[in-house]
Each structure stands twice: as C-alpha cells, then as structure tokens.
C-alpha cells in the first residue's frame, strides 16, 4: 500500500518538486513525507495551485475599488451593482484537456468555472468563451473547433445558463496549444455571499456532488504505477463532465445557501480534495481531519493518494454549522446527490487523513501555503519593433477584393456557426448576445430594469509585438466594448495564457503584459477581481503568442438607456469619435492582405480612451445616438460593415482628407468609436466634442443597400454579408479550407 512506497529522488522529481523544494518539505516536517504527503505537497506547490512563477507579478494589480466586495483570493471576484445585488465572476482556462479531448475538456472547463461562481452563493446567469485555435489549414483544427464548441454548448445548454458571447481566433501560433478560456458571471445578494474560510473547531465537513473516481490524477506515473498494475487503464487523464449533476448541484447548493447552515464552502477544482480542504483550513486558521473511508467512491480499492489527488468533477466541500447536519442531508438527498460527512475541523493546524483506521497523512497546513515557492524568474523585455509608416505599407489596388478578403478572414468572419450551438436565451434575461455581433453581451438582472454588460477581449498579435502596449490594449478594449453599449465598466477578470515561464523572453512577455494591463486598470479605476494563469503553453519549444484574455463586466443602470451596433437608421450621419493616424503596424490589413505580421502595434493613450469613452456613454444615456460600435480589428471599414450587417442597412464612408486610403479605412488606431446619429444631433455632438478636446468628424451616412468607401470599395450589403457568414460553415463542412 501507499505508505510502503520509498521516496526516492526519482519519485520526488516525478512529482515536479525540485531538490530545494523537497528540502523545505523535509525541514518543515522534520522527517520524510510518505507518498500521500508528498503528493499533497506536490499539487499544492504546483504552478497551478501556488502560482509560483506569477504570484509576485499578480500582486501588482489594482484589486480594490469602491464597487469591489471581494477581490482575488476567493473562488471568484465580487462586485456591487447596487440595490443589494452583487455580481460574481471569473474566467479560467482549460487549454490542455481541450486539446486532448476537445468535447470533454471544454465541457469540464465550463463546469469548473461555473462551480467557482455558485460556490460563492451566486446563481450563474451568463457564460462567455474565449477560444484560440491553430491555423485553419492545420489538420487538427477543424476537429478541435467542432469538439470544443460542442462541449461548451453541451455543458452550458444542459445546465441552463446562457452562453452570450465570446471571441474566436485562428493563428498558427496555437497549432499545438489551443486556448479554451471560459468565463462565468453570477448574481447574488451582497448579504449572502459565501467564502471558503473554515472558521471554528469541531465543525462537520461535508462532501457533496458526484462520487470520487480515478479521474485526472496528477503526479508521477512511476509512483502511481506502484499502486496498481493496470494503472494505465484505470487512470483517465481527462475528466468527463456531467452537466446534469452540475445542474442539481447548483440548485441544491443555492437551496442550502438560503438557510444559515453553511459556514464555508469550496468547490473541488484542480487537485480536488487536497486543495479544497487545505485552502479552507488555511483561510480559517484551523486544522482538518478527514476520514477517507467516508468519501463517496466510484471505484473499488481507491488509495488515499488517489482520493486526495482525484480531479473528478461536480464535487463540493463544505463546513456545516453543528446542528444543521440533517438539514444539509435533506437538501442533498432531495436533489439525489451523493452527500457524506467526511470529517471535522480541528485545533491542531494539521491536515490529518485516516484510512482504514490508520493515519495516512499528518502534516502542518501552514507551510503548504506560507512556504509555497514564489519565484522571481528572470525576464527580458520584448525588443521594441519599428513603427511602420503608412506610406511604407503597400496599398492595395483592388479595395473591393481587400474588403472581401478581410471580412471573411478567419478572425473577422462571422462566428454564427459557433454561437448558434449555444443556448443564448435560456433564463429569458438576455437582451443582447453574439446574435447581433454586439460589442458586449447584455444580460438583465432578473426582475429589474438594470443589466450587466459582459465582454472578453485580447489582441494576441499586439501582445506579441509589444507586450506592454498589448496589455494596455486588451484592458482598454474591454472597457471600450462595455462603454459602447452604454455600460459603466466596473471590473475585470483575466486568464493569462503564456508559454514556459522558465524562459526569460516568455517571462518578459508575461511581465510586460501585466504591467500594461495594470496601467490601464489604474487609469480607468477598473480593478482586477479574479483571474487565472495558464503557463507552459508550448510545443517543441515554440510558445503560443502571449494571450492575456480579459473579461470585463459593467453595469447598465437603466435598460431604457443602452445602445448596440444594430440601431443605425436610414438617413443617419456616421461620426467617428477619436483620432485616426492610420496605424497599420500589426494590423489585420497587414496580415490578411500582405501576409505580414510586423510593425509596432497601435499605442494606447489611456487618458484619451477615458475622455472619448466617457463622452460616448454620455451620448448613449442622453439618447443622442442610434448605434455605436467601437473600432478594433480591421479599423473603420470593418466596424462600418459590422454596423451595416447588424442594422440591416447599407452605408457609405467618406475617403480620407489626407494620407493613403488603406490606412484610413483599415488603420487600427485605438480609442475610437463609430456612431450613427440622427440629423438634429450631428452639430451639437461635433461642437460638444470639440469643446471637450475630443476628435470627432463626420465620416459618412447610412442608407441604401451597398457598403461604399469613397475612392476605395463599393460592394452590396448582402453580397458582403454572404462572404462574412460563409467562411466558417464552409470551413467546418470541409468545402473550403
């Protein structure tokens, strides 16, 4: 059995622990750990649980603000949206499992992030997903898209939480490492938020949800091989999700949370029972004793090591108030979930595990957290790229061809094939979703006339070119997308996807992005309240492009005042807010038309962003605009096309007053919005803007059934829409690639 396994240097190494780390363990225990204890240290000190490469940098983030109820450190972040309502949200990656088993990997990613949110007392009300796949030509891409999308839909649809938005990119940089980032937003009451600190001694610990199996057991093949001969067959590396049980778990937990039976609650995520019990104990300053014989088990002869390290899904751990045990049993029995009292909190400060009447682990809890490695990995900044002058970038001679090529480029093309597989309407509070190609999804707070706006964004090609500017840009773009629907941006969550942090250039990308993000957060008073780090996304020494996905949440205080990009009316004037220099470095034009991925990305002037955005929000609240869209990938021309598609009407754009047309139409300067304005509002808007020092100019008008760019392109709305809609279904059906 487990305790007989001799801890050799190989076993220590297989557990991902360095010699130094192992020496700390020996020192803190004053003896050699047994295999269970080693396994526990190993997962607690893994990158995933301890954030050993990233912790010191995450510490720089702005995490507080007057709307922040709970910042990073709990299962998810919590913000105050008034009237006693709180929004709880977080984003998380499930990259590696999704590459191996796209359906289950993505599905369990969605399940996991939902648990983080309802653990805190929130009913999940919206899901988002940020996806990065390899290039379309890569043989595996189609199969991955198909499986991941089916998995996200399969889980979210079944649980009955609408998937309201997301983003999808394709780039060869993700050929061997796709990114599947899922975000969940939940609604709670500010006075009924649940935390994970297991306060008090002698309180019962409850296990609820699914039984524990040998799913996704972390750790050393060799060490585990000694448990069992046919371990290969018995240890699926990928977990299977059960959305049916998740749905029951949500309802049951919320039902129990409506009583006062719960002292602390924590979902069992990565490193399952180990991290959940230790985190609860550590935060509560108590010890924990668990009798593993009481853990509901799916398979026979499970060892303590397996039970502690299993990553079986749909499980929760909670500390119940003494005297309320029966109430808890009744609720979980009603929902037909497994439930068991498996231990109690103690005053020893130790984690004690009993199995078959023997003590199989007895270690102090404090060092697991306090002494977790915290590395200052060497980092070198990404060398700056030269700024490309528009005059030095080849100007297409065929703008009709250029606009068609860009509108059907994989990153720009409609993602209808994806989001039509997601239930976007269940709960009947979805006001706007992917369906309108909106900047941010809008979900009403049930029973009220207010709503949250939600968006996810990052532009990896900018982050790759210049991590610091790219970091600023991704936060700014979420802020802009929330602003574009009339919401007050409140806070963000993030999912930082990078390569191997032990390589200084990768660590340089990481640090650069964080510093840029943080600067933007501070400029907007837009704190980070939760997040997740995914490192080592690389294959054969080639890392993914740095991809710090940001999920932003804002509040629309009154649904009588919001806008989307779909309201442009015949006869409206198009006004461009924000300055256009014609920035083509690292642009979509450069990549899609010239197959070039060079040049510095557009700089982000945060003060200008704030000034312009605040003005846009004011215009929306004053009902001065009929449609708003922010400018991002593909610049003015693509923003105009998207507005035309969503509003179902043609439009024409004026050419540039100076400079080459390609930089005017496709340049990607930041801090810009395209607004569609009725005749009487044009002059007041222009003059107010000018008084405030905001660049604003008339750039065209709405009407007709063509999309026209003076001196450049002239195409039919329906023809262009067809190209936009066709690419992804054709690609997925294999009729195009």
């Amino acid at each position, binding site marked *: 059995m487990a305790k007989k396994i001799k801890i050799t240097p190989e076993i220590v190494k297989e557990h991902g622990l360095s010699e130094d780390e192992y020496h700390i363990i020996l020192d803190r225990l004053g003896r050699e750990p047994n295999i269970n204890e080693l396994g526990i240290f190993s997962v607690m000190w893994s990158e995933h649980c301890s954030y050993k490469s990233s912790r010191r940098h995450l510490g720089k983030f702005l995490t507080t603000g007057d709307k922040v109820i709970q910042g990073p450190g709990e299962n998810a972040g919590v913000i105050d949206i008034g009237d006693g309502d709180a929004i709880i949200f977080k984003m998380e990656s499930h990259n590696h499992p999704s590459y191996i088993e796209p359906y289950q990997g993505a599905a369990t990613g969605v399940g996991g992030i939902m648990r983080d949110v309802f653990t805190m007392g929130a009913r999940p009300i919206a899901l988002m997903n940020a996806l990065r796949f390899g290039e379309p030509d890569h043989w595996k891409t189609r199969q991955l898209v198909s499986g991941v999308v089916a998995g996200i839909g399969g889980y979210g649809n079944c649980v009955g939480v609408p998937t309201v938005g997301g983003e999808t990119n394709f780039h060869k940089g993700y050929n061997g490492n796709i990114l599947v980032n899922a975000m969940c937003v939940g609604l709670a009451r500010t006075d009924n938020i649940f935390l994970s600190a297991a306060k008090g001694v002698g309180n019962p610990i409850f296990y609820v949800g*699914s039984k524990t199996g040998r799913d996704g057991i972390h750790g050393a093949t060799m060490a585990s091989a000694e448990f069992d001969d046919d371990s290969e067959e018995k240890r699926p590396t*990928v977990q299977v999700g059960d959305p049916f049980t998740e749905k029951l778990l949500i309802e049951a937990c919320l039902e129990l949370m409506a009583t006062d039976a719960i002292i602390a609650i924590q979902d069992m995520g990565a490193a399952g029972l180990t991290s959940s019990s230790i985190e609860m104990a550590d935060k509560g300053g108590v010890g924990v004793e668990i009798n593993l014989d009481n853990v509901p088990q799916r398979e026979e002869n499970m060892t303590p090591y397996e039970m502690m390290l299993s990553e079986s899904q749909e499980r929760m751990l909670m500390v119940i108030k003494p005297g309320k045990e029966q109430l808890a049993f009744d609720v979980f029995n009603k929902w037909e979930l497994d439930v068991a009292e498996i231990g109690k909190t103690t005053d020893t400060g130790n984690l004690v595990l009993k199995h078959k009447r023997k003590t199989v682990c007895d270690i102090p809890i404090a060092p697991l957290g306090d002494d977790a490695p915290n590395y200052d990995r060497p980092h070198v900044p990404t060398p700056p790229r030269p700024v490309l002058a528009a005059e030095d970038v080849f100007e297409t001679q065929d703008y009709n061809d250029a606009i068609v090529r860009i509108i059907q480029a994989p990153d720009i093309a409609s993602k209808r094939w994806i989001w039509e597989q997601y239930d976007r309407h269940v709960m009947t509070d979805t006001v706007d979703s992917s369906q309108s190609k909106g900047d941010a999804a809008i979900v009403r707070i049930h029973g009220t006339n207010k709503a949250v706006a939600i968006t996810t964004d990052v532009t990896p090609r900018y982050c790759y070119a210049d991590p610091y500017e790219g970091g600023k840009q991704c936060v700014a773009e979420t802020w802009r997308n929330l602003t574009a629907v009339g919401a007050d941006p409140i806070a963000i969550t993030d999912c930082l996807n990078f390569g191997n942090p032990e390589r200084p250039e990768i660590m340089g990308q990481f640090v650069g992005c964080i510093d840029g993000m943080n600067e933007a957060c501070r400029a907007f008073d837009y704190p980070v309240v939760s997040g997740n780090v995914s490192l080592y996304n690389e294959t054969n020494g080639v890392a993914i492009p740095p991809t710090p996905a940001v999920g932003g949440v804002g509040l629309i205080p009154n649904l009588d005042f919001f806008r989307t990009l779909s309201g442009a009316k015949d006869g409206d004037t198009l006004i461009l807010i924000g300055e256009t220099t014609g920035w083509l470095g690292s642009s979509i034009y450069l990549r899609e038309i010239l197959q070039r991925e060079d040049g510095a990305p557009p700089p982000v002037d945060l003060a200008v962003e704030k000034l312009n955005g605040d003005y846009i929000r004011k215009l929306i609240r004053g009902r001065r605009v009929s449609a708003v869209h922010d400018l991002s990938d593909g610049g003015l021309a693509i923003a105009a096309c998207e507005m035309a598609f969503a509003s179902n009407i043609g439009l024409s754009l004026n050419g540039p007053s100076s400079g080459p047309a390609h930089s005017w139409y496709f340049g990607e300067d930041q801090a810009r919005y395209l607004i569609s304005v009725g005749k009487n509002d044009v002059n007041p808007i222009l003059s107010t803007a000018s008084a405030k020092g905001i660049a604003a100019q008339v750039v065209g008008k709405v009407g007709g059934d063509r999309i026209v760019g003076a001196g450049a392109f002239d195409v039919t709305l329906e023809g262009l829409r067809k190209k936009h809609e066709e690419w992804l279904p054709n690609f997925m059906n294999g009729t195009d690639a």
Partner: protein
Amino acid sequence: MKAIIHVGLKPGVLDPQGRAIARSLNDLGFDGVKDARQGKVIELDLTHTDEAAAKKDVTDMCEKLLANTVIESYRIDISTDE
C-alpha cells in the same frame, strides 16, 4: 463485408448516462439492476473483400475518428455474411 464496432468508455471513466439509466430503472421498480453502462455500436457496410484488409482499415478508422482512445476503447467484428 460488414464491420460492427463497439465503442465504450474505458473502465474507470465516469459514465453519467449509464448511472442515470440504472437509477431510472430502479425507480421503475427494477431492483435487480445494479449498474448500467452505455456505449455505441457502429455498423459499416464495406466494399472490402479481404477480411484482414478490412480489419486493418477499420482499426485505422477507429483510431482516427470513431473512438477517442483517451477515454474510449473499441472492439471490431468483421462479418462476411451479407
């Protein structure tokens, strides 16, 4: 020639569907059901005439498409009777 392929979850992989079936049967009063698992059968009509070649091809199909060997295992039966 025909190939019958059984695809099932590997032992130890959670089978929520099987569990729900067992429970539902118990609810209906079938107490004799201890456990249930659900898998799929795929039946292929093949133009192959050689059994060994068919087997080799079908194995290839399983590995590439019909089963995800991370969580599923499969069994192939080739039958020549039409």
